[in-house]
């Protein structure tokens, strides 16, 4: 790229809305962002993050040379040495009979993820491949696809803006998925009734017709309510019957003031009667089984009421990051092949054989959490995995114990600091490729500036690494990789060749995104029954007799603030820097009135006790938290570990100290 200036159309690297923006460079240095007025998703609008899409690449602490760890110290080296060293470490582990895992990323392109999966299943012959933000999204998808096989996502945002009733399960969608929040706001402006459902009142709740406090648990009661409404709403009862058979019909305890049955009924009836209605589901909790069950309940409501079949109605699960969906569709998951094909799908396997030029491991692998305790070697693509794990601290410990950690990233993340080999790749502003938005829009991202120093595009590095491990086929460009993707994933090919394909991308909607039946068994066996647990907690919370009168809930499954793209942006990191300086020990939030009664002031420390343990932690007061509830931001889950013990909820007692 020569001197001069250019505006390069690309896709916002942050959330999964898939907004279009131009990155601008002057003399090969990034200078700023311009929204794309003609982009079908964003139409000239960007959120705070989108407006700062150039910042992390420009201001961040970048990896600019391959680094190899010698005696605890990273030493810069050349590509050849670094790649050979990485390959040797990996082959030694394989030779010793231990296993290796690979992590794709919602921050990487489809091409990079596809090659990471090839590295795992093709070169290393392992099924241990996953990505950080997959679990919560997959849980929503699995729930949705169980009863709503044809969920039409392609113009979901546009349609949402014209719906009459919107049921929104959220943490704070104005922050997590602003473009979706905009669509909902537009609908409300046009007179739509918005029902927000979440653990705390949010910015969207202020525009809502109803706010229903919603915490993990209670899904069977919710499902039953949905079922009975759906039953009345439709003459064809099959959907409702199916639901009743699958989930125990219970009723909400009369004493709970959290989810009011009457309000839920109002919401669902409005939904049923609307001529077009939307359900938007954000991954509000790290409790995957709950997400899945609740998504199933919503999907059945949508199917049972026949809303789903109505043109313009929407059922939209939201992935966390720009390419969480793409990473999954490229096969960065332990239970499926690229294209969300079953491991046993012979046609899919033979297509992959063709494009990878090698046999592949079609066995089921471990998911990210299990991987970290099992594998001896790990390849991490563009991510800082502990940020999304059940425990960040335990995740970092596990990473530091690995025999071999190979990190491909543009940024010096804490994970890259721990690596044995760090391979510098281009950032989102320096990489060609494609990403797939929450609507399934496959869009091109384009390099605006060259990667700094010795850094190379991710696809190139993954190719070289595969070659060092004995894979013969290499690619000349990101497009070259995309051509392989088109062969491996027929839906992408038909999307690209479809008439609606435009410079702003095309829609590739996979037929019935593959659920993960095995995961359901594994998850529900591993976790306590979330609904029973929660109802018990709710009851004690209300009765107040058992000694644990508060319900402590961990909210969210991912937070932007620690992510490299935000942490390295001067504009985006300010709030967070200030928060972590002022609250180095974290905090929990509680209702102002409750705090008054206990004589606790804002910022004071309190002792929080559950049947599992206790902590002393600052409390921040908030009007918007429901009485008898206390919230733990996802970022502070480790601080609450003694009380939560890796669950997302606990009944607790609070004492002023």
């Amino acid at each position: 790229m020569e001197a001069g200036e250019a505006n390069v159309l690309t896709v916002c690297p942050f959330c999964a809305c898939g907004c279009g923006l131009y990155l601008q460079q002057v003399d090969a240095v990034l200078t700023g962002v311009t929204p794309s007025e003609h982009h079908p998703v964003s139409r000239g609008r960007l959120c705070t993050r989108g407006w700062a899409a150039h910042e992390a690449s420009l201001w961040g602490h970048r990896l600019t040379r391959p680094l190899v760890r010698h005696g605890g110290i990273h030493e810069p080296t050349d590509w050849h040495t670094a790649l050979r060293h990485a390959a040797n470490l990996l082959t030694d582990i394989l030779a010793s009979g231990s296993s290796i895992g690979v992590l794709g990323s919602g921050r990487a392109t489809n091409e990079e993820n596809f090659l990471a999966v090839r590295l795992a299943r093709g070169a290393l012959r392992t099924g241990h491949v996953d990505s950080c933000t997959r679990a919560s999204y997959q849980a929503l998808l699995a729930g949705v696809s169980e009863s709503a096989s044809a969920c039409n996502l392609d113009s979901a945002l546009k349609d949402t803006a014209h719906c009459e009733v919107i049921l929104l399960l959220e943490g704070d969608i104005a922050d997590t998925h602003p473009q979706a929040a905009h669509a909902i706001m537009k609908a409300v402006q046009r007179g739509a009734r918005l029902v927000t459902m979440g653990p705390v009142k949010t910015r969207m709740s202020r525009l809502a017709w109803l706010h229903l406090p919603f915490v993990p648990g209670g899904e069977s009661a919710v499902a039953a309510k949905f079922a009975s409404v759906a039953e009345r709403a439709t003459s064809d009862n099959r959907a409702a019957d199916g639901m009743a058979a699958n989930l125990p019909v219970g009723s909400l305890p009369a004493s709970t003031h959290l989810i009011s049955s009457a309000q839920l009924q109002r919401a669902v009836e409005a939904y049923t009667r609307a001529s077009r209605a939307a359900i938007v589901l954000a991954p509000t909790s790290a409790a995957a089984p709950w997400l899945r069950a609740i998504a199933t309940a919503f999907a059945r409501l949508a199917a049972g009421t026949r809303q789903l079949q109505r043109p313009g109605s929407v059922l939209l699960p939201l992935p966390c990051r720009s390419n969480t969906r793409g990473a999954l569709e490229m096969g960065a998951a332990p239970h499926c092949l690229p294209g969300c094909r079953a491991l046993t799908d012979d046609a899919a396997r033979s297509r992959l054989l063709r494009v990878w030029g090698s046999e592949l491991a079609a066995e089921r692998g471990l998911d990210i959490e299990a991987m970290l305790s099992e594998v001896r070697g790990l390849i991490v693509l563009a991510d800082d995995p502990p940020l999304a794990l059940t425990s960040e601290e335990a995740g970092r410990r596990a990473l530091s114990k690995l025999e071999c950690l190979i990190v491909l990233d543009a940024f010096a993340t804490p994970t890259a600091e721990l690596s044995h080999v760090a391979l510098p790749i281009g950032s989102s502003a320096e990489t060609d490729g494609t990403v797939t938005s929450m609507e399934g829009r496959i869009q091109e991202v384009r390099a605006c500036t060259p990667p700094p120093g010795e850094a190379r595009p991710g696809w190139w590095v993954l190719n070289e690494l595969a070659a060092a491990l004995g894979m013969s086929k290499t690619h000349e460009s990101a497009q070259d990789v995309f051509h392989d993707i088109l062969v491996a994933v027929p839906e992408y090919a038909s999307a690209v060749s479809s008439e609606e394909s435009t410079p702003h991308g095309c829609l590739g909607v996979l037929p019935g995104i593959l659920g993960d039946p095995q995961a359901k068994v594994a998850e529900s066996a591993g976790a306590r029954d979330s609904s029973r647990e929660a109802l018990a907690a709710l009851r004690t919370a209300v009765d107040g007799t058992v000694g644990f009168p508060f319900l402590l809930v961990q909210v969210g499954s991912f937070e932007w603030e620690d992510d490299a793209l935000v942490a390295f942006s001067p504009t985006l990191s300010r709030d967070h820097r200030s928060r972590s300086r002022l609250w180095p020990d974290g905090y929990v939030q509680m209702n102002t009135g409750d705090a008054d009664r206990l004589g606790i002031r804002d910022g004071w420390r309190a002792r929080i006790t559950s049947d599992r343990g206790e902590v002393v932690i600052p409390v921040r007061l908030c009007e918007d938290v429901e009485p008898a509830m206390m919230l733990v931001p996802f970022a502070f889950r480790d601080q609450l570990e003694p009380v939560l013990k890796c669950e997302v909820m606990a009944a607790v007692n609070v004492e002023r100290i």
Partner: protein
Amino acid sequence: MRPDDALSIAREDLPEWLALLGTRAQMIAPTSGPHGDVFYSPVSSPDEILWEFENSLQPPKRFLLPQTDPLVKIHSDGGRFHLEPVCDDRRQILVNLRSCDLKGLLYLERVHTYDLPDPSYLRRSENRSLVSLACTEPCPPGFCICCDAGPFLRHGFDLQMTMLSDRMFVEVGSDKGRSLLEGAESMFRPATPDEIAKREALEAAARDHFKTETCHFGSAMRRISTGRVAEELWEAMGDWCLECGGCTLICPTCYCFSVKDRRVDEGWVRCRTWDSCQYAAFTLEASGHNPRPGRKDRMKRRFFHKVSAQYYQRDGDVGCVGCGRCIKVCMGTTNMPAVVEAIRKGEWHG
């Protein structure tokens, strides 16, 4: 209009004149990007210049105030520091500016001259020539007429062009503008009375486009300046803002910034970067205290700066040129005309 300030040039001669200008300075003009969006960007040939276009979403502000603007280079050798201010001395001619955008640049020039002049801005603006293309067909979202920023300008431009059927009517607004005609005198001739009449008629027609539409800045200003906008109204409007900052970043008159050092090779460049008063952290203090904690407080700030009498007095204008961009970029619904109307009526419905 003095007679020698009104000229005209045959439309087929325009490319030659512009090509001549292109040899003296970098030419910045509206161009059509590869994906249908219009950009002001450097052009190497007059053929690339758009003459009929919907105004670009990104205003030409960035040629005077880039989103990332290097101010000082900092090197260190052995703990001793050397500083070198960054000077942008490139000559640029900005052509086919829309009236509102040119007015925006005048506003920026004033705020950077006011009180302590900012040499780094003023050096740039000295090196820029501003040539506007009057809006004979006002754009749909615009309300420039309410801000005295268009569709035609009376002053402030170096040159203002008006497209007549076969000729381009050119008004000279400054010495800098006159110098743009040097070497091309033979292509220009004084405007004929008929051409002047046509130009007047075009302006009248363009103004008629707006009919009786006005933005009622006056009554909003009276209320804002005296604190007579109900808190509840601000609060209600604040609920409809998603805090994207787009309204201010895209605004031709907004210039809030932060200063940050960026690592480059063996040193740093201290840069001024666009910031927005709509961001919560804009006023966040080291103690955690924030004097503008709520969305309503920040929205109040935006409109105080843009339409209070206090600022009007200081800057000589409202901080709005009626370009309508904040209508397009707003993630919420709280754009300038909507809020001004709500303030005037004392009610907000989203």
